[in-house]
């Protein structure tokens, strides 16, 4: 810029004002937030992994990489992640396609299925599936064996069982991101393939799905990393199946006396996996363009599936049955029984609901806290995600790739690690007293879940033709104005999906909350955990049901507020949270 300023007096003020502009401020702010939220805590982790009482050491890494049990855990984690990623795609993409681009019946049901499966806390669904499929006493197994006399027994305590349960929780990542992306695909791309003779399925596979590859890959990446990091189901299903995974190893290291250095080293191994996965994704997307929302008013058109829509609908119902009906039915049954395991009909009771709603005095405060925290955190993650994503996709700013990597790292960290890193960091910062306030919880939540916001925004932005923004700039719209009027509305479906993706886990976040809450800031997850930890599975189930009801209601409201006018003009466009 300097030579321009030198060349003319007129350019100088504009250069200066640009430097002070909203754009610089917001972009700078976002980068700074990312540094504070992610980079510093992770840096402290790196320090911890290299620092022992006797100074700098590589001993932790040595142990992590040579200890047979850790390598086995790593292997198991990768296997788990790979299968879950694959299954998430196989389930998520067709469902997303069906809802966004076809005339499949029962769209609200599919929406609800995906949302609810994401919503159900993984550790509770794991328990539910153990109830259903544990080899000796699992309800379904008993039914198959003792009632129907079939010689089939499912064993949930296996890698397949673990993959199955985890995938039910993670396929919504793919589903939600893909379906929001699919909404902005101009129908003429598909029509062009059809007229060349490609059948509907072929078109879907070779044109539509690849067109939303950024979203599918982002979803898969999230599913993969999340599957690896998900502690609850790995502890409940993996341990009895003797399947050790990295998170279970890492959690164990935090038990007294904590082996923080080793845990940090193992966690960074985790980060490395995440980074490699993101690297692969970026490689694949490189150079190709996925602009599906161009400057010529995109139309979306529903594919008429004919009788096949009933087949697809059948598949959806099946997914719904496994992902929602069975675990929820089992949870509801538990929540209504006096003591699970007794004769069900005789011990039917509403006591558990009475207890958690009226006697367990933290419930109401916890619910309120969690909703407020989740709303703020989800909004912040999405906002931050939009900016970080924008920097990556739209600018040539040096280091923007690093930003993208940095914003994915927290996802790969087991919650407890992230929480401890945060805690250590914020406790050591002088003058800023965040401890015990909502602020520290928010920092933890935003830090942990900002990857979800970034991935959602990033994949949405790739679908939007930059000339739509350029057209606003040339009319004199500032950066901020263009963002507000053009960019953000255009990627709204993706942002809404991102919001949902963040909101849900924040409500259920436990591993950081449990270290950071105070009596005033107790959260729902902590309240549930306290009940569960002390042996009350029945009220826990009741609380989980209440919890889910509230989240669903909160989301419906948020969706109403967030879903403004339709983006792509077509009565067929849909987005999550219910049918239009």
């Amino acid at each position, binding site marked *: 810029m300097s030579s321009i300023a030198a060349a003319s007096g007129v350019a100088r003020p504009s250069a200066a004002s640009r430097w002070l502009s909203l754009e610089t401020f917001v972009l700078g702010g976002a980068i700074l937030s990312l540094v504070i939220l992610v980079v510093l805590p992770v840096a402290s982790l790196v320090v911890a992994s290299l620092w022992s009482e006797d100074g700098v050491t590589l001993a932790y890494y040595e142990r992590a990489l040579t200890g047979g*049990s850790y390598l*086995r855990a790593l292997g198991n984690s990768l296997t788990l992640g790979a299968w879950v990623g694959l299954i998430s795609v196989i389930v998520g993409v067709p469902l997303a396609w069906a809802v966004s681009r076809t005339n499949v019946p029962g769209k609200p049901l599919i929406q609800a299925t995906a949302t609810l499966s994401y919503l159900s806390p993984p550790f509770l669904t794991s*328990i539910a599936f*153990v*109830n259903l499929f*544990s*080899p*000796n*006493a*699992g309800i379904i197994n008993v039914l198959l064996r003792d009632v129907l006399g079939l010689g089939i027994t499912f064993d949930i*305590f296996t890698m397949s069982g673990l993959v199955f349960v985890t995938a039910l929780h993670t396929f919504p990542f793919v589903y939600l991101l893909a379906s929001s992306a699919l909404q902005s695909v101009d129908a003429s791309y598909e029509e062009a393939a059809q007229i060349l003779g490609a059948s509907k399925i072929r078109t879907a596979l070779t044109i539509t799905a690849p067109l939303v590859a950024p979203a599918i890959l982002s979803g898969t990446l999230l599913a993969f990393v999340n599957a690896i990091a998900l502690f609850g189901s790995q*502890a*409940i299903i993996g*341990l*009895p199946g*003797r399947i*050790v995974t990295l998170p*279970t190893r890492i*959690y*164990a290291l*935090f*038990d*007294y*006396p*904590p*082996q923080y250095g080793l845990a940090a080293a193992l966690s960074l191994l985790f980060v490395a996996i995440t980074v490699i996965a993101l690297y692969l994704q970026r490689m694949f997307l490189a150079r190709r363009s996925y602009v599906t929302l161009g400057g010529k008013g995109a139309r979306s058109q529903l594919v008429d599936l004919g009788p096949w829509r009933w087949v697809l609908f059948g598949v959806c119902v099946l997914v719904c049955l496994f992902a929602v009906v069975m675990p929820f039915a089992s949870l509801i049954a538990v929540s209504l029984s*006096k*003591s*699970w*395991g*007794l004769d069900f009909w005789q*011990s039917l009771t509403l006591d558990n609901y009475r207890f958690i709603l009226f006697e*367990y*005095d933290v419930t109401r405060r916890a619910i309120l806290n969690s909703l407020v925290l989740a709303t703020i955190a989800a909004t912040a993650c999405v906002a931050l995600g939009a900016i970080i994503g924008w920097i990556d996709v739209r600018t040539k700013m040096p280091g923007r790739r690093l930003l993208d990597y940095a914003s994915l790292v927290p996802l790969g960290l087991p919650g407890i690690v992230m929480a*401890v890193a945060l*805690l*250590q960091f914020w*406790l*050591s910062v002088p003058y800023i007293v965040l*401890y*015990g306030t909502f602020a520290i919880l928010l920092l933890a939540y935003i830090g942990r879940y900002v990857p979800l916001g970034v991935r959602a925004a990033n994949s949405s932005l790739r679908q939007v033709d930059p000339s739509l923004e350029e057209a606003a700039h040339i009319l004199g719209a500032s950066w901020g104005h263009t963002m507000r009027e053009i960019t953000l509305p255009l990627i709204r479906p993706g942002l809404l999906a991102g919001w949902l993706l963040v909101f849900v886990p924040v409500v259920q976040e436990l591993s950081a909350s*449990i*270290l950071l*809450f*105070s*009596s005033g800031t107790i959260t729902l997850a*902590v309240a549930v*955990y*306290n*009940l*569960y*930890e*002390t*042996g*009350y*599975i029945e009220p826990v189930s009741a609380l989980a049901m209440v919890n889910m009801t509230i989240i669903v209601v909160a989301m419906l409201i948020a969706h109403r507020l967030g879903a403004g006018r339709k983006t792509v003009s077509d009565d067929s466009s849909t987005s999550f949270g219910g049918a239009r």
Partner: protein
Amino acid sequence: ASAEEVDMAKAKAEGKLVWYTSTAIGQANNLALMFEKQTGIKVELFRSGGSAILRRFMQEASAGKIAADVMTMSDPAAADQLSEKGTFVAFKPKDFDKITETARNKDGYWIAQRLNAITIYMRGDKVPPAERPKKWTDLTDAKYDGKLVMTDPSFTSVQLTTVGVLADKYGWDYYEKLNDGDIMIVQGNQQVADNIKRGERLIAVGALDVYIAADRRNGHDFVSIYPEDGTLLIPSPTGIIKGGPHPNAAKAFAEFMISPEAQKTFPETGEYSARVDMAPPAGNPKVDEIKLMPVDYEKLETQAAEIKEKFNDIFR
């Protein structure tokens, strides 16, 4: 012994105290309310899992920002270690001498709040009396193959104690045999109870008895065996944090904790009181009728990591 006096005036002036605890949430609430009613001092409660409590406390301590006044945890080994480090205030309140000797620090750095009985419990309806094990060593019998369940010491500190003691006594061989018998490993006591309740497994190999107490009252046919070769009664230590913001209220609360009013609530919920003069939970044997297994907490404390690793090696 001469009991230390609590300065109630100062305690009341402090007005409140902060209690980190792993006590069951209902119970903890109950105790806090009782204390407030009695003294007017408010108890701010942090209830969480034993190791979460510890982790949190240690983070704060290392940053020099101590928020807790009183801490109740479930790991005597850790409590001993912290005592050595000078974390706790030595305090011998009234009735200190009424506490079971193994359940208190001799210098008064910590006092047990309650005793956790580790039993072999089982489904009375599925395991006929003749089949029921009597000792730890019975469990390696082939007839129990596929019927046993226990927790993982990596996640449960009482199990760490149990494993440490049994491995010491019978050698790791004992666990090798359990492994051959296809024992199920679960994360925590909750899942042990759950698996027994549903009948997935029939016998719990050393788990907290209190987890089935309520179920038993609700009508489940659960039988607890107090092994003849020694039962573990693991105290839950409560200590006063040195440097806590409400030192006097903390003492008042510590004293209250072992008072008969407070202690009698434990047998009511199926746990052993720490006091020698308190009746056992209904239907349970008295403490002095049980053959106790001695625990060397000092040794445990140094071997914790090793025990976990060894355990992992066997069961993977």
